[in-house]
């Protein structure tokens, strides 16, 4: 009895040690994030900011007892249904942490590290089951958790996809059922599968696919009792998850069919690029157009053959595969396991084939070649004709099923090798594989360990905005695509000011985007604010529409005169979308008056109070605004405009009342703006906030034509400049 108790405790402690091991391994894989756990996030894309907002929103609303399924905190006043996020259970874990007092960013990072660790642990359970010892668990866990697929999703901020441990856990439960068919193990399989649903719709489908693969395996192996119990368990799981189906439909609206003809044409792909860049006017975003984009998205989210061949450690999740490390260890394991690995090998091949999507593409260059379109892959037929399959509209993610098979093969192979060679140094082998697997971010593929982390600090001005009377906010520029990181942060900033916000980072579903377009397009004031940074020429809106926006609850419009340098870099050439110039700046001032709040490069304009007499129309033709073409456009070239010691660079000659440009400090002193007229030469200092792109607006007080120059002192000068304009 005492010995039994001791053995049980020893087993429990062993699993605690394993769990701690995976937490440490996750921290090592994600390094240097653990060194900045409370202030930075691993990821520069948009899901990270969205998830941070969601966690904060949920915890605040739950704490206040005001949580509703639809919120107008974003996409105000249309409203956004929170079920669209589709990973409620994971969010509840994050919210629970926050309600216990864990700060937001720390809670987010705990979810990320915890998700990765749970993935390793889930695979460990499968590996230990197949191998019989923890060594088999470790090798499976390492193959699974060190994949570029999980890493890339984590870097992109998709924490719900990093927490994939329930898929190998489900596979382990099926193995137990096969070994001992009966209602207990059958129920465990059913609950394991059903539990995936609330955490992640994608993974429910993928786990179901894996279940079908395992079922076919049992039928082929003539294990009829196991097959019958597995079928019953999967039916029960489907019944348990059935109430969630309407919510699944919300998360992923009905997918349009794939058109074999149009995918071969160039025009739809050209439109897709323009759409992704947020360059298309609102009136072109019709329902049929958005459906076509959704269909092309399936192809764009498929693994390319060239990537599958080399399986690099890519940071971009769209380019990710199980990875060379997982493929190598898994395939060697398969070879060692021999016939025992047949079933897992078949699942590996099947899942890998499905990741290729509907059409075989060698690389990412559209359109789809004719031969590939005429001979679709299995995914195409499943997508078109199997109910619910089209919800798995990002084929590359099916790679997680292949990963489960690779993890299983690795542990089965180790078991075969160890049974054949008793003196095989299994622990040493696993330790060596751990070293290789966990260090991949430092040396393999994109070497993402060296990428900078994203700072989550928000300007204090947002807290001041929270003190102003409640009212809807529009942050400029308003975008219908998550175009830049600075823009993505607007939704995140809502957690500080708590005012309802029209901007929404989650318009990736065509139903939400269509609702946004429908609302904004009906109001000339709001539609003028869309993509305001890249608009050129005349701007106009009616007083009636300003009043209508105010009547709808809008109260504030926010202009940014600074953009963090890091955010700008991550936006690549699209950074100009963040840079408002003229005549937008002066039109805002004319229509809305002086800012009600201004600090930290944020200007908060107030909309006129209801009943205020407004002009019929505001219009600014911008005919007096001249866009300059300086010798170096730093936003395009990534190169500062350098001025030689004591030298000058001419910018403009003619009538001028104002010079404006966006600038970022370069090494060394900034040049002065030299205004040379017949009467005098005046030097104007250029004030740029370090670490930011800043909008510089300098009035030019001179009668008659002037020459505007950058001038340098004895040491020379340099400045990053773009979007340079003169108002005549």
């Amino acid at each position: 009895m005492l010995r039994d108790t001791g053995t049980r405790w020893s087993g429990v402690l062993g699993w605690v040690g394993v769990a701690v091991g995976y937490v440490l391994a996750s921290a090592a894989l994600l390094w240097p994030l653990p060194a900045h756990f409370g202030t930075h996030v691993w990821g520069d894309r948009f899901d990270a900011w969205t998830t941070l907002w969601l966690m904060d929103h949920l915890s605040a609303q739950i704490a206040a007892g005001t949580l509703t399924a639809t919120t107008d905190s974003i996409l105000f006043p249309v409203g956004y249904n929170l079920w669209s996020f589709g990973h409620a259970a994971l969010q509840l874990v994050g919210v629970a942490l926050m309600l216990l007092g864990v700060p937001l960013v720390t809670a987010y990072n705990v979810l990320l590290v915890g998700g990765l660790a749970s993935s390793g642990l889930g695979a460990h359970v499968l590996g230990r089951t197949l191998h019989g010892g923890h060594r088999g668990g470790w090798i499976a866990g390492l193959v699974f958790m060190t994949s570029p697929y999980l890493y890339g999703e984590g870097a992109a901020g998709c924490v719900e996809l990093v927490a994939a441990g329930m898929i190998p856990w489900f596979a382990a439960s099926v193995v137990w059922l096969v070994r001992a068919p009966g209602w207990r193990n059958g129920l465990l399989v059913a609950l394991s599968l059903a539990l995936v649903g609330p955490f992640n719709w994608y993974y429910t489908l993928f786990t179901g696919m894996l279940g079908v693969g395992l079922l076919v395996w049992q039928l082929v192996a003539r294990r009829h009792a196991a097959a019958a119990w597995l079928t019953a368990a999967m039916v029960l799981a489907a019944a348990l998850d059935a109430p969630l189906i309407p919510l699944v439909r919300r998360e992923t609206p009905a997918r349009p069919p794939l058109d074999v003809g149009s995918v071969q044409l160039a025009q739809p792909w050209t439109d897709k690029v323009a759409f992704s860049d947020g360059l298309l006017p609102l009136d072109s975003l019709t329902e049929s157009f958005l459906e076509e984009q959704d269909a092309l998205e399936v192809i764009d989210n498929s693994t390319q053959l060239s990537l599958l061949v080399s399986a690099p450690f890519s940071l971009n999740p769209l380019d990710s595969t199980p990875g060379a490390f997982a493929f190598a260890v898994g395939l060697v394991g398969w070879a060692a396991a021999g016939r025992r690995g047949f079933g897992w090998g078949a699942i590996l091949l099947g899942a890998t084939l499905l990741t290729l999507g509907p059409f075989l593409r060698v690389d990412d260059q559209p359109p789809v070649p004719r031969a590939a379109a005429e001979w679709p892959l299995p995914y195409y037929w499943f997508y078109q004709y199997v109910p619910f399959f089209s919800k798995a509209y990002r084929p590359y993610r099916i790679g997680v099923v292949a990963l489960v098979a690779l993890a299983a093969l690795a542990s089965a192979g180790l078991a075969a090798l160890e049974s054949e060679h008793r003196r095989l140094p299994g622990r040493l082998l696993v330790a060596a594989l751990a070293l290789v697997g966990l260090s991949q971010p430092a040396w393999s593929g994109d070497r993402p360990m060296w990428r900078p982390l994203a700072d989550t600090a928000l300007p204090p001005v947002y807290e001041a905005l929270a003190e102003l009377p409640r009212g809807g906010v529009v942050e400029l520029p308003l975008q219908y695509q998550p175009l830049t990181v600075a823009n993505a942060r607007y939704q995140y900033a809502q957690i500080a000011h708590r005012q309802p916000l029209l901007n929404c980072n989650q318009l990736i579903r065509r139903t939400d985007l269509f609702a946004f377009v429908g609302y904004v397009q009906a109001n000339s004031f709001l539609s003028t604010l869309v993509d305001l940074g890249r608009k050129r020429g005349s701007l106009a809106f009616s007083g009636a529409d300003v009043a209508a926006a105010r009547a709808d609850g809008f109260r504030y419009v926010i202009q940014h005169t600074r953009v963090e340098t890091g955010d700008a870099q991550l936006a690549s050439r699209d950074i100009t979308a963040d840079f408002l110039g003229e005549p937008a700046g002066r039109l805002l001032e004319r229509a809305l008056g002086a800012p009600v709040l201004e600090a930290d490069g944020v200007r908060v304009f107030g909309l006129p109070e209801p009943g205020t007499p407004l002009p019929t129309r505001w219009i600014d033709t911008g005919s007096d605004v001249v866009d300059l073409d300086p010798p170096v456009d730093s936003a395009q070239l990534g190169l500062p405009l350098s001025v030689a010691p004591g030298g000058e660079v001419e910018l403009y000659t003619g009538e001028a009342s104002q010079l404006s440009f966006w600038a970022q400090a370069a090494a060394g002193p900034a040049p002065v703006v030299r205004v040379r007229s017949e009467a005098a030469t005046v030097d104007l200092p250029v004030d740029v906030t370090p670490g930011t792109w800043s909008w510089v607006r300098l009035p030019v007080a001179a009668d008659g034509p002037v020459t505007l120059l950058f001038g340098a002192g004895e040491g020379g000068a340099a400045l990053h400049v773009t979007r340079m304009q003169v108002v005549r």
Partner: protein
Amino acid sequence: VSALGRAALVVLALVAWRTAAVPALEERWERARASAAPPPGAGTVNQNWSDPLGALLGPELLREGQRLAAELPPAAPRPGADRAIEPELVALAAALIEREGLGGTRTSPVVAATEGGDPWRGVEPRARPRLLRALVEAGKLDAPTRATVLTAVLAHLADIRAADAAK
């Protein structure tokens, strides 16, 4: 064949795959890309991820650049730097310099033809591909200036490598 024997055979096969088959396949696909029409949207910007520079410059130039880059000594990782893009950057810069007929200038000093000073001073590595892309796409600078800037790129990278080597 024993389990160990089968595993060893697969290890050998994987090594052969990585060292021979993958490069051969990639070269073949590159040739196919070179002969194909430019893809729709080439030269525009993807919303989330930078376009591969190779797609803009063309596979022939890229391949030549890769060949030249292979001659450069490997670089050690530097904290905070975006090492992922640098090999590509080196490859393209080298290829462009070759195309401009300035072969052998990789160790040349920086010629300050762009208004004085090292144009790469203070420029984050992440921003450099934009420069190259813009140079090629827009033809913003004339050929001699472009070559000068590209020479500066390589000199800069050579400095980094020298600093790394000295650590």
